[in-house]
């Protein structure tokens, strides 16, 4: 069957009382335009890496927002920094900088 790059996700429960927003707050300081994101998914739809694999930049920043950051660094390494996401974002989020800063925060920099 043709793989369209979309799949049904397993149901997951998230305890919002326990989410750690510290990294997200720091990220917002470094790239304030992120606050404008309304999770439309345009970035993921156009993503160059997404054309090859299930790498999903919108999902990554949702996970980041929720403090579920364990695997994100490894995921983000799939980005080619090509900049298409930044260009299509209807909210003017500076995604390339966001990606670089996410990796920095995840590496304690």
């Amino acid at each position, binding site marked *: 069957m043709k793989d369209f790059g979309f799949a049904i996700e397993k149901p997951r429960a998230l305890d919002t009382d326990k989410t750690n927003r510290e990294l997200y707050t720091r990220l917002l300081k470094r790239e304030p335009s992120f606050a404008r994101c309304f999770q439309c998914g345009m970035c993921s739809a156009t993503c160059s890496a997404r054309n090859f694999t299930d790498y999903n930049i919108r999902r990554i920043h949702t996970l980041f927002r929720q403090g579920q950051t364990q695997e994100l660094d490894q995921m983000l390494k799939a980005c*080619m920094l090509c900049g298409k996401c930044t260009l299509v974002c209807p909210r003017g989020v*500076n995604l390339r900088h966001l990606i670089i800063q996410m990796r920095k925060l995840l590496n304690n920099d």
Partner: protein
Amino acid sequence: MIQKITLTPFNSFVIPFMAGVLFLLVVCIWKYIRWIRLFNEEQRAVLRKNWISWNIFPAIWEMLREGLLHIRIFKRNVVLGIMHQAYALGWFLLIVAGAMESMSAVRHLNSDNSPEFASELISQGNWIAYSKTDTPATDILQNNPENVKIHYKRPLHLAIFYRYFLHSNSPQFKNAKFYANLMDALLLYVFLGLTLAVIKIFRSRLMGMRNTTRHTIIDRFSKMSLWCIFPLRFLAESVTASLYGNGGFWTLSLAKLFDPVIVEGMEMSLWLFYSIMLTIFFVTMPFTRYMHIFTELFLIYFRKIGMTECNAKSGYSMFELNACSRCGICIDGCPLNRDVNGHKVQAVYLIRSIRMKERASVIRTMSTDCLMCGQCSIACPVQIDIASLRKIQRNKGAIDTRGNYSYLHGMRSPFNAMGRVAYFGGCMSHLTPGITTAMEQIFNAAGIKYWHMDHHATICCGRPLEQQGFFNQAAELREKNKRLLEESGAEMLVTSCPICYQSFTKEYKLDIPVMHHTVFIDKLISEGRLTVRHGQAKTAYHDPCELGRGMGIYNEPRRVLEAVSNPQTVKLERENSICCGFNLGNTVLGINDQTKIRNAAIENLTESGAETIATACPMCKKAFLHNTKQPVRDIAELVAENIILEN
């Protein structure tokens, strides 16, 4: 029996000067040796292989051209050129002529061997006489003037303080007056530079500069000493001239205004001040922008024998950093200065903060904020490789690990690509599909068998990562694309994105030729393989940074555009074209700043009344599209519209 005596000029005011020269020499040699030891393996190999080669001659020529004549600055602005040239060439000639003057004078004195002259010099108190024997030199001179051989010494400071030590010359020295006038003329020349430099502080626009560098305290201090050197020399020489009547036309004319009785007491102190100013300049020089004076010459030599900047700070970077004269020529063209205020990222400031080891966070901001549009590199008269220096700094702040590109392992090139032209649209052209469609039409119309290697998905060329200092990840992507191309057996690569074009040309080292589509189309038209009709649209061509300044491609796109439309003249074009603001070299600037730069670029393009904006880069097209009344078309699209199909 002939007795020998030796005379040497001395006055205590030469001590600071000599100390300054010695200090400068020691520090410079120490620094240069240290930097050469910091060369990395590649640079050492170049040095070992080419240190003596034919390239030395072009190197010497460039040293004269750029170190003394400053031709590149002249081409930019004549008055600015005169200013820089007057300083460099004027001072250099002053030193050369001064050395020749003192050499001839001493040679003639030696051949004269006149005891009267020697006694007079000694009585003035500025020449010390000594002999090898026990009898003091003065006694020898008095008691036995016929049988004495006088040897005049010529220490370094004689040329510098010449008129103080020699009030008159040997009658045999016929050229003495000529030299005196020549020295005055050269001093006048340096004064011209000095005057222009003072004017530049208040009216830099006269020299074609809207902005000048904001210098640090130590730089200003050093500049003040430099500015004092020549007026003090002039004053000191004039006072001496009013006392003894030596000197050239200019000093004598000032000397006439002085009353010898009044100025007599000032003579010593003026020469002393002159010496102290020289000393201050020499001592501060290695730590200020004036270190560029000698360093630039070394840099030219190393560059000519084939050395380049590498991925990490090396000895060569040290030469580059120190060769910057902080002339500030790189400031004006920078879009972040012209169209968006408040970004101090320009080469001059970046280089200064790296050299002066400012705080890491300061350097990091400076290196990342910039667009990498290359405007400063083109402007720099020293041709410092600013982009590489910036990349090295960005790399320091980047998490430069390996990527996670296992998803690319399965990529294979198709079996039928053999012998075809590989076409690489680039990531961005997926956002501007008109370009790739147009290119496919062009290939078909010209009957060229092609392989659209990123029709469905693009493996990025890696340059966006490279520019941000992620060297490892970029290399991995390059490896993938390179393997695909090599496996395919394609004969040639055509790209639509100038960023990819630059990357494939400079960073990939492929065995097959690489062309940007504008060059390729130009070739097709000139070879008669593609026939186009001349459309009526008035177009304005936007030179993409990466294609123009990056790769030096200016003429081919213009020729193609001329074949299919009516190109209008654009005010800032070719090297001076304004970046579209969305250059991938930058990640930090937000949408607001980018928009300001883009609008400046659009205004520049549409001023001439063009009906269509023509570009040659998917990124630029995407940046302009829907933000201007005029339609925005890639050159490929304009060509595809106007193809005349035979039969």
